[in-house]
């Protein structure tokens, strides 16, 4: 168990107190009686929430609890059905994110919301470009971008298009951008979900500095240990309502989890977040997937990975070290300059469809760009890759489809108004679960998971791990590139879950190198 | 040398002397224009390049025959001809003309897309002392200064004949419909004005109840006519400003279960083969020709222009008028295109 740390009383920060202030300064941003419903879903019910200057305020809750919705209502993305938003005591109904930004609220939304096709520098400065004689000074912009990003551990030519960066690096750009804005309140919706331990440290440094300047920070994360490191206070949400507001140090982990899940503390303590037993799996037999000497200019330089039945292989490495590329290359989704991939001992055609037929499936890292098909329903998203299996003479076998969808929605506890809901309307974590279901329903021999627990809550994380462990035990192999439940070669991290040890025991790290290093 | 741009009959008709354009009038003033009054250098047509600018797609038999006639006549006279087609785009026609000048054309024959909009090309030609002969549609400007002169039909006159025919076809009067050519096209305009004026003046018992554009196109003509027949089931006559629209109207009338030539009288303009056949068969009441065989008259005019004799600046050609009495004969003689 990780010890709570960094949770200091707000009053201890002298900078945070307003002139002539009291121990608990007046909230800078406050909402009261907020209601918001979408067709079929009551996302926020009578929510009160307040954040004070100079505090880091954790906002937590299981997937679909309403955290992102609350943030979007506060920042003018959604209009509340009822209730009011107050900024420094004055009513403020922001008509748009622009208005919120102008009022001093800077937000990092859950999905990276930058422009993939534009350059890194332009993304960083969009709307606030340095100008000379009224025209954008792009030399200066690039120079400053390079300097700023270097401080965030991103060493990159700022003229490169953003989308050529890995998701983690993109996230760092988004953070840098949000912090550059002259804000009184900085809201971060799961900023660390795709960050490496080292970047998380960098981020915490930023957060502490902001706090020292008296800036209020709203911090959403499913990684409970992080909360104890930086947060001062916490608001817990469940099913669209606030269930507890307290000092961070006053609530211990188990309580937190039980509040989020709405279960008795004793229950949680006894069973953990879910009822999974540690899976015992044996590594046996010839590799299901054998990738040898994968080469791709600028990205992969002789990567070799073997995945045997029953084995969980972790791909370790830092941001942009090429883990995602390796997974994609194995999948046949990325053309290679050299190297071989064997699946089940045979080389397949290098297409995604062929890999899937051979029993290898992948959960992509970037769920927004490469994962969900936004306007299709949950049902259609789940069975998307399984269509060939549930189709007869071109017709979709509905009974089979419903059976699969039903099973996985229950199994992964996907929170939706029903299988017909558009997947884009689900909360981030639930979208991730849908994608996981898409992979699992293919009954794969090898599962390539690229950051599979991105943004999913404690309960679900255990589910995911449970599902994945149950696959190896059925003779499947599993390869993942996520840090918190497989060890990264250079930066092993403690997982939020007690099963990590078992995990790393059966995991084997493979290093991948980058060219040009 | 077949360009795929002419119907099989047009070649025959172009060479047929009875079908050739005949001059009806050469303008009241009788002014004539020579290279010296125009201010152009004297050239021998046989030694220079002549440029021909066609305005519209050769898919229209009128255009195909016109182009063919010019091409044939140039070949017959041994004159080097270059040509362009602007596909109904004025902007393009300006470019075409300027391109041909750049390519070395010393004399130009232009079938203008419209009266206006060719100013830059004409100005450039004038600056370079390159004379232009306009055919089939007029352009604004001064003859023998901005251009040599004009050869073509009297569009309003054609329409007047059509109106008189309509009066003959419907002696008891009745409701009639007009299928107009493309909006904004000056030929269409002249054919509308000429017709309505004549009806207003001499046939008060004819009433125009529907007047819609059908873009000089057959399928559109058919569609529009189908609609008109729904809203005006009592229509007695249709005046189509060209033959293709007339053919479309006939198809629509038949589909509505009526008999063209009996229940509804159709009159068209252009004198294309299909339409004249219909006149002969009594399906159409009459058809006024627009003779597209400009080659001989145009090159004659240019030859005269470079002689001391000079060429008249406004040549109106005598268009045939096909009725039940002469249609079959014209067809037999191969006079139609």
């Amino acid at each position, binding site marked *: 168990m990780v010890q709570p740390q960094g949770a200091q009383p707000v009053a201890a920060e002298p900078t945070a107190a307003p002139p002539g202030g009291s121990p608990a300064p007046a909230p800078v941003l406050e909402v009261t009686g907020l209601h918001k419903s979408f*067709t079929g879903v009551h996302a926020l019910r009578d929510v009160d929430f307040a954040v004070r200057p100079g505090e880091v305020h954790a906002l937590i809750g299981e997937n*679909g609890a309403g955290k992102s919705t609350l943030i979007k209502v506060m920042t003018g993305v959604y*209009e509340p059905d009822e209730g009011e938003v107050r900024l420094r005591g004055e009513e403020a109904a922001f008509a748009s994110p622009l208005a919120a930004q102008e009022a001093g609220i800077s937000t990092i939304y859950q999905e990276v919301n930058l422009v993939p096709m534009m350059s890194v520098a332009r993304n960083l400065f969009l709307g606030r470009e340095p100008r000379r004689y009224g025209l954008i000074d792009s030399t200066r912009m690039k120079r400053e971008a390079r300097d700023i990003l270097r401080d965030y551990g991103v060493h990159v030519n700022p003229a490169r298009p953003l989308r050529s960066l890995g998701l983690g690096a993109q996230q760092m750009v988004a953070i840098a951008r949000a912090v550059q804005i002259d804000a009184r309140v900085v809201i971060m919706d799961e900023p660390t979900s795709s960050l490496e331990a080292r970047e998380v440290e960098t981020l915490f440094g930023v957060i502490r500095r902001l706090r020292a300047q008296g800036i209020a920070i709203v911090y959403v994360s499913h990684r409970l240990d992080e909360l104890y490191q930086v947060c001062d206070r916490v608001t817990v949400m469940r*099913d669209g309502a606030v269930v507890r507001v307290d000092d961070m140090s006053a609530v211990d982990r188990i309580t937190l989890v039980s509040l989020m899940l709405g279960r008795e503390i004793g229950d949680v303590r006894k069973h953990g977040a879910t009822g999974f037993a540690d899976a015992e799996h044996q590594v046996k037999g010839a590799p299901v997937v054998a990738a040898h000497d994968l080469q791709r200019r600028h990205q992969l330089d002789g990567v070799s990975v073997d995945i045997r039945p029953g084995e969980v292989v972790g791909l370790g490495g830092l941001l942009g070290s090429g883990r995602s590329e390796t997974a994609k290359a194995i999948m046949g989704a990325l053309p290679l300059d050299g190297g071989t991939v064997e699946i089940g001992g045979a080389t397949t055609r290098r297409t995604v469809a062929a890999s899937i037929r051979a029993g290898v499936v992948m959960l992509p890292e970037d769920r927004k760009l490469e994962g969900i098909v936004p306007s299709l329903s949950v049902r259609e998203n789940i069975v998307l890759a399984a269509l060939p299996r549930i189709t007869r003479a071109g017709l*979709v076998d509905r009974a089979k489809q419903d059976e699969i969808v039903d099973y996985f929605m229950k199994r992964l506890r996907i929170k939706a108004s029903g299988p017909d809901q558009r997947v884009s309307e689900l909360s981030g974590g639930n979208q991730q679960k849908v994608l996981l279901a898409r992979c699992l329903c293919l009954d794969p021999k090898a599962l390539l998971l690229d950051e599979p627990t991105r943004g999913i809550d404690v309960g679900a994380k255990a589910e995911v791990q449970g599902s994945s462990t149950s696959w190896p035990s059925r003779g499947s192999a599993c390869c993942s590139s996520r840090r918190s439940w497989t060890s990264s070669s250079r930066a092993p991290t403690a997982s939020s879950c007690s099963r990590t040890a078992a995990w790393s025991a059966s995991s084997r790290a493979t290093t991948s190198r980058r060219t040009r290093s | 040398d077949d360009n795929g741009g002419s119907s099989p009959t047009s070649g025959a008709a172009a060479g047929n002397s009875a079908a050739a354009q005949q001059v009806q009038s050469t303008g009241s003033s009788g002014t004539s224009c020579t290279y010296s009054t125009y201010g152009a250098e004297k050239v021998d047509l046989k030694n220079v390049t002549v440029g021909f600018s066609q305005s519209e*797609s050769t*898919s229209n*038999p009128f255009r195909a025959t016109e182009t063919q006639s010019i091409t044939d006549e140039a070949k017959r006279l041994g004159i080097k001809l270059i040509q362009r087609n602007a596909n109904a785009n004025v902007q393009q026609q300006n470019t075409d003309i300027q391109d041909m000048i750049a390519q070395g054309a010393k004399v130009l024959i232009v079938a203008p897309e419209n009266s206006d909009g060719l100013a830059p090309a004409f100005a450039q030609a004038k600056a370079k002392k390159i004379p232009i002969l306009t055919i089939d549609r007029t352009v604004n400007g001064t003859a023998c200064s901005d251009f040599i002169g004009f050869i073509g039909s009297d569009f309003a006159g054609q329409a007047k004949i059509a109106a008189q025919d309509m009066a003959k076809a419907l002696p008891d009067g009745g409701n009639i419909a007009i299928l107009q050519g493309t909006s904004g096209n000056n030929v269409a305009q002249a054919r509308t004005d000429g017709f309505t004026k004549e009806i207003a003046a001499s046939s008060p018992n004819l009433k125009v109840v529907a007047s819609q554009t059908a873009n000089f196109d057959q399928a559109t003509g058919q569609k529009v006519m189908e609609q008109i027949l729904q809203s005006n089931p009592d229509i007695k006559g249709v005046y189509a400003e060209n033959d293709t629209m007339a053919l*479309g109207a006939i198809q629509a009338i038949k*589909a509505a279960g009526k008999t063209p030539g009996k229940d509804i009288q159709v009159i068209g303009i252009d004198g294309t083969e299909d339409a004249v056949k219909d006149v002969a068969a009594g399906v159409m009441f009459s058809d006024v020709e627009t003779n597209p065989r400009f080659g001989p008259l145009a090159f004659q005019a240019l030859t005269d222009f470079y002689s001391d004799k000079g060429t008249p600046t406004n040549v109106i050609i005598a268009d045939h008028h096909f009725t039940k009495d002469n249609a079959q004969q014209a067809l037999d003689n191969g006079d139609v295109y």
Partner: protein
Amino acid sequence: MTDVAVRPTPAVLDRNRVITWLQDYGVYAAIVVLIAINTAIKPSFFSMDNFRVQAFQVVPVLIVALGMALVITTEGIDLSVGAVIALSSAVIPLYLGYGPWLSIVVALVAGCVSGLLAGLMVAVANVQPIIATLALMIGLRGFAVILNGASAKSVTDETIGALGLDSWFGIPQEVWIAVVLVLVVAFVVRRTAFGRRLTAIGDNRAASALAGLPVKRVLVAVYVISGLFAAIAGVFLVGHGGYADPSNYGLNYELSAITAVVVGGTPLTGGRIKVLGTVAGAVFMQLVAATLIQNNVKNSYSQMVEAVIIIGAVYAARGRSGR
């Protein structure tokens, strides 16, 4: 802990519901309104004769729009449909000597080949659909006219004529065929894997590719279908007009078809398709044109009124706003 949370929809008729209703049924309502207005002006508008006239005019557009809807669903667009109509009309008289059916088959094959070209350019060569099909649109028409020879050719064949003019049980043959096509397309879209893939690809191509969908194959197929449907429309037009005129047939059909698709509620951004909406969109636009011409509105005003009506219809049926 909540399992799959199925919350009942509140049964209040709020603004959202009205908007949703309009979105789904707005076009149909607009059709009813137009018919009512016209019948009030002239009762004979509500007659079998008039119905047939409108049907003959709308069917070719509708069939083209069906194919277009499929293409648009994949986030594409097919500007070549008008030229394919020209091509199929050019082919008919060429092969009529071998009998009407053979000539029809050749015309349809020509449509498929053209669609194949478009599909390959889009799917394999990765050319942007609008420009790939623009090239086809220009080139094919030229080719069709060259095939045909300049002037229109009359087609007096009975079978083809019947397709374009005759009725079965008082309803034009064209309409029967169109109904079958609509049903087939609706079925394919709703029930088959192909339909599912189509929408997925249009909605998120990268995700579809990573889920192993046969992206290229689906794209090619969609353009082939669009070409085929346009060719069918070409055959009907030849039958109805009694002649083949590749230089003028199908002009602006791409715009009419796209308009029908969009007015029918299929977004141009892909990923969603409304088959019946497309039918309604085409019928609606046809009725607008009929209303204007039958009331002898001047061309200038017709265009302006049509513009306003299009905007009005799309406004009523517009998607929920992003906020």
